């Protein structure tokens, strides 16, 4: 049988929508992954809309807690977060206070292990074995295995109900690219949630991104929201 040369050309579906509609799909009690490392790559506008809509009892998975009055700090200040899975919250005194007061539960991961747990979720794996953190407090309560005579810890995969992603460019199908160190956790989280919502600085028609320069392939993405403006939160931090 010969291949069907010149078979019909398909078209890829359009996933653009209004930010209100996309964020309204998030329910109370949702687990929400949020991209970003410091300011770069944090989806500030999606976070603001989540604050406005006010969903409660959220578990947030994010590298850091931003700084006070920035990013997910608004979710913390608004009492929307009950649990935070993170690597370092030292730049946000509010997060530290809430943790110390027992008002949010915080689970710390080694940074690369958080990245791998999210990636494992996105890759449809159940977990992985590593010796990272073996001799630290972070090993507590983690099952240990012996593998080829060496000890290893089991780290479980992380998936979320929702991922909030900041992209540099997106096409309408949800192919994404990221810029500079704004990439960080974004492409990993964009694979690891049942509902992936992207805010894009630039929205392109199909074909606007070359297939070789795509960082996150469109099939992983559910909703694409074009940013109407880059608010002050995206700016260089003046210290």
């Amino acid at each position: 049988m010969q291949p069907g040369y010149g078979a019909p050309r398909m078209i890829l579906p359009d996933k653009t929508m209004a930010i209100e509609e996309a964020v309204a799909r998030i329910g109370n009690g949702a687990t929400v992954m949020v991209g970003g490392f410091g300011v770069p790559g944090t989806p500030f506008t999606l976070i603001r809309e989540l604050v406005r809509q006010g969903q409660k009892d959220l578990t947030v998975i994010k590298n850091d807690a931003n700084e006070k009055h920035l990013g997910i700090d608004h979710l913390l200040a608004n009492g929307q977060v009950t649990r935070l899975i993170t690597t370092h919250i030292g730049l946000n005194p509010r997060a530290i206070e809430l943790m110390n007061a027992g008002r949010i539960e915080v689970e710390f991961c080694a940074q690369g292990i958080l990245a791998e747990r999210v990636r494992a979720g996105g890759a449809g794996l159940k977990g992985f074995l590593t010796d990272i953190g073996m001799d630290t407090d972070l090993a507590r309560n983690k099952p240990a295995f012996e593998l080829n005579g060496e000890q290893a810890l089991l780290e479980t995969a992380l998936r979320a109900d929702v991922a909030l992603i900041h992209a540099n460019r997106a096409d309408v199908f949800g192919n994404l690219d990221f810029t500079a160190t704004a990439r960080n956790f974004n492409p990993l989280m964009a694979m690891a949630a049942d509902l992936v919502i992207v805010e894009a600085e630039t929205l392109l028609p199909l074909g606007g991104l070359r297939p070789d320069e795509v960082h996150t392939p469109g099939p992983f993405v559910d909703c694409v929201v074009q940013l109407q403006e880059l608010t002050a939160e995206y700016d260089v931090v003046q210290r």
Partner: protein
Amino acid sequence: MSNAKARMIARAAREITPGMVVNLGIGLPTRVVDHLPAGYPVCLHTENGLSGIGPTLPPESADRNLIDAGGAYVSTIPGSAFFDSAVSFALVRSGRLDLTMLGAFEVSAAGDLANWKIPGRFSPGAGGGIELAQKARRVVVLTTHTDRDGKPKLLCECTLPLTARHCVDRIFTDLAVIDVTPEGFALRELADGASIDSVLDATGAPLALPEGRIPVF
């Protein structure tokens, strides 16, 4: 291609609903796309690293770096993306593949699939088939109803090594459309010219018949 096979493929094409991400296995399944109208909103995935497969190309106009998993030279469409093999199967395993269409040596009444190995005769390796069968949200099989010797491919239990257990949702053959239900095989549609008796004869397991008129494809 026989008329019956062509009708089977055309019928299978209707399984693809708008917006799906679909992986078509090597062989008959790849032909399904010929029956979709141009401009249909679907994203075809190939496990060697491309979403958004465009038309297949003859050697003289092929790109030496652009093939599908079956080795056919393909093309891109606006919105295609390339990725590595880990990302490609991440997509499959994490539930982003809505549908796969696969070939089969045997399918059991419980939806077990055997399509990669015949001990002592054929064992080239499973390639990406295990993950497609096990993890696509919907798995449909395209196959002749019987093998070359006329023996049923739809059986109570598979005799060959499995590709995946409890994975097949629906089977398209040259004789019928059959669903795998919690109670076993169930006839849904008949091929034009096929009788219920011919299907029962060619099926190696109990087959539930629908009430009323059976649609013909």
